């Protein structure tokens, strides 16, 4: 993850070319979740897991956390960075 303005961009470690026309940008919350999601290898990403992280880190209700987590995971699957 690298900062770009007040967002974060994903740049793969082995990637030899960075395409600024197709950047994957994340706001701070998504970047926080992504960092945690990629800390351990082979972690199964469920909305409940992400919601726990959000609930622990931010002042947000469990329901809101679960909703945000679900949307985030959906988004990641859509753009192909999670399965």
């Amino acid at each position, binding site marked *: 993850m*690298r*900062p*770009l*303005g007040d967002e974060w*961009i994903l*740049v793969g470690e082995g*990637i*030899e*070319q*960075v*395409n*600024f*026309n197709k950047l994957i940008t994340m706001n701070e919350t998504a970047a926080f979740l992504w960092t945690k999601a990629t800390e351990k290898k082979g972690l199964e990403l469920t909305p409940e897991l992400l919601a726990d992280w959000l609930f622990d880190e931010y002042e947000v209700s469990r329901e809101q956390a679960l909703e945000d987590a679900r949307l985030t995971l959906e988004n990641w699957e859509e753009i192909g960075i999670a399965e």
Partner: protein
Amino acid sequence: MIPEMAELLAEGKDVCFTPTGVSMRPFIEGGRDSVILRKATRVRVGDIVLAAVSGQQSEISGQKSAGGHYVLHRVIAVDGDQVTLQGDGNLTGTEQCTMAHVLGTVVRIETPRGRRKPLTRGRLWYRIRGGRKWWLKIYRKLLRLGLLG
């Protein structure tokens, strides 16, 4: 955005983006063609480079950089450490910078459809720069008529 590109280039990564503006016509159509930049191991006359030059506002991004701006222009002269640049689509006006301010060289130009555009040294284009105004007029006409892919 360009400082981030500079960092990635310095790390040895290639950077792909779509520049804006008309200053590199007819070779690069701003807002449409994309370019791939690579760290420059050496700078030669004829190279198209991304450089930090002293001046006002950037044509690429509209960004004002501290004490200068960035251009994606062709190298028309090299004198020791001094590099002179000029946009192929500019009638007059050149920029100066040192070798250290050249962030990367264009290694590929692509149309939106992914078709590779010729990457020449622009020697002929430079030689006919006296009539550049008219050549660019013709180019713009062809562009408007949709005859340029």
